């Protein structure tokens, strides 16, 4: 059976002071408190600005070795790709990851591609080159465009031992289908909430404003159990971060899976 780790997408939200962190908590204490709840986190700041080795070494130190970090690739590798510059950006990104790699605290690198990243020859060539370039890293790919969800993509990821992210999204036409297919020893699950009304045309805060019901999480227990027979590690991240709902759901899922909240272990 796989090692199942559950956490949230990001931990540093000021609006979590109150619902998650005690009133008066300052930013420097967020990670310490988070470490008491979960054993993994997905870092998202790295998407907006290129991380540095110092930053990640500091986070690893703050977490006292209790947290496995997954990290979202910088936008220059997934959304704003410069054909002549991406390798340099990739080098910079990889260099930043070294402290996590050296301490064995790198869970996965998340490559999240936007809806505009179509299943076209030039995009496929780029993806192939990127995966080769980052090959030693534990990689997970998330596609927002449904065209990528075909058997050739799955086979290609399997050959390269790259995980295909399983998604939970609103049931809206145009979004990717529900697909759980194991393509590496690592499974990676992201739950974005099911807020149909605010998914399109609103800001990220509104888009991810959703609290999963117990029934919805129970369904995920079944999906996770199906995956767990096939992989070594499952990383699960809740991205419905508005008002700390991700934390509440992550704790509930831990309970439903019969796992104690990590701080009680």
């Amino acid at each position, binding site marked *: 059976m796989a090692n199942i780790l559950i956490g949230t997408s990001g931990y540093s939200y000021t609006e979590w002071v109150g619902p998650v962190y005690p009133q008066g908590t300052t930013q420097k204490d967020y990670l310490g408190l988070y470490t008491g709840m979960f054993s993994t986190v997905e870092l998202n700041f790295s998407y907006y600005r290129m991380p540095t080795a110092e930053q990640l070494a500091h986070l690893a130190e703050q977490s006292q070795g209790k947290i496995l970090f997954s990290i979202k690739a910088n936008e220059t590798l997934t959304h704003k790709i410069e054909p002549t510059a991406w390798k340099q950006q990739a080098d910079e990104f990889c260099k930043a990851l070294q402290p996590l790699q050296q301490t064995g605290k790198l869970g996965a690198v998340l490559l999240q591609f936007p809806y505009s990243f179509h299943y076209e020859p030039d995009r496929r060539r780029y993806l192939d080159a990127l995966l080769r370039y980052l090959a030693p890293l534990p990689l997970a790919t998330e596609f927002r465009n449904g065209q990528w969800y075909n058997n050739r993509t799955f086979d290609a990821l399997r050959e390269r031992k790259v995980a295909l992210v399983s998604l939970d999204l609103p049931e809206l036409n145009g979004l990717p289908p529900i697909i759980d297919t194991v393509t590496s020893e690592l499974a990676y699950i992201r739950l974005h909430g099911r807020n149909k009304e605010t998914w399109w045309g609103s800001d990220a805060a509104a888009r991810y404003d959703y609290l999963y019901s117990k029934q919805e999480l129970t369904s995920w227990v079944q999906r996770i*159990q*199906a995956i767990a027979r096939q992989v070594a590690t499952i990383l699960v991240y809740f991205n419905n971060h508005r008002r700390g709902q991700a934390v509440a759901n992550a704790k509930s899922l831990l309970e439903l899976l019969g796992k104690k909240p990590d701080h009680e272990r």
Partner: protein
Amino acid sequence: MNGKAGIVHLNITNFAAAVAIAKDTSLSNVPFVVAKADAARATVHAVSMRAWEEGISAGMPLATARRLVRGLITLPPDPRSYDAAHKAMEGVASRYTPVVQNDTGGHLYLDLAGTTALFGPHIDCAIRIRNEIASQTGLEPSVAVASNKLVAKIASRAVRPRGIAYVREGEEASFIAPQDALLLPGIGNVTARIISVAGLREIGELAQLEDNEAIALFGHRGLALRDAARGIDKSKVSAGNLADRTIRRTIDFAEPILDYRAVQAAVTSAMEDLGLELRQAGLGTASVGAAVLYADGVRSENHERTGRLLTLDKDLIGAAMRAFHKAAVRRVRIRGIILTASRLEAPLREPDLFAFEGPTRPERVQSAVDTARLRFGVQAVTLASTLFYA
């Protein structure tokens, strides 16, 4: 996830090999095949994943497979275990819906319509069924939910060997469009060759063919292939075990007869018609029955059970006549005959629904005959004896 799509396809990849591994887990990482090793020209029925990685495939001569892997483990077919596995799978599924179509080879179709109130969203229910099958039998199917059987089967193939897929209603065509054309059910060797030569790779490319293009490439069945590529499928989930289903033809003579050659002509004609239906469904039969209805009201019946699947007219007619001989033990005029094909199964090789051809000469002849019959009617091409005594 409360969409209407409620047709489920559960698909166990390499069923015979999977059953062998479920019985003996030490085989899970070993190259092995399932074959009748004592047959004169034995062919491989099923391969394990490791054997497949070594280049062995189903249908390959066993001697060739043994040359590829020295000391290749060869297991005999184990029909009892296959039946038991099917029954166990069906038993789990039947607890959730009465509409379960149990096809052979590790395929189960379910219709979950009307079950949401009891068991929740269809995709959740399908995954629960999948997991229960896995824990009870050790067999882990891929599972897909869609609005029809065709799309559900394509999706379950896309996520083989053990994945999960849910295709929302209204997104069938967009989901199957980027899938490999060879995932379309019914693509056999011949159609696959045409698709390859035409440079078509994805189902979506087939879906875009104009009527004349589809017919030019694939002949009379081109439009059916093109429509399938668009995700169109109106067939229903037929409750029951494929092995329990029967295809039937009834012969009523205008007046009771004792003329053997007229009986033979009628049986031939009826079996030609039955055979066409059988091949269109992509099936073969392992049991042909004949019930003789005598003029005095007595009925006598018997079966010809074959050790192999019959699909070609000449074999079907031969089996039907043997069954008739066993059943017709009285010298009394006959007023009718009921012919049946039962113990149905899909042949080992993917039946080519879109071009009824096969690699052997008899299959090619049958293919040409079927093409003519589909175009001009079953009576268009028939054995001369049926015309002479008709």
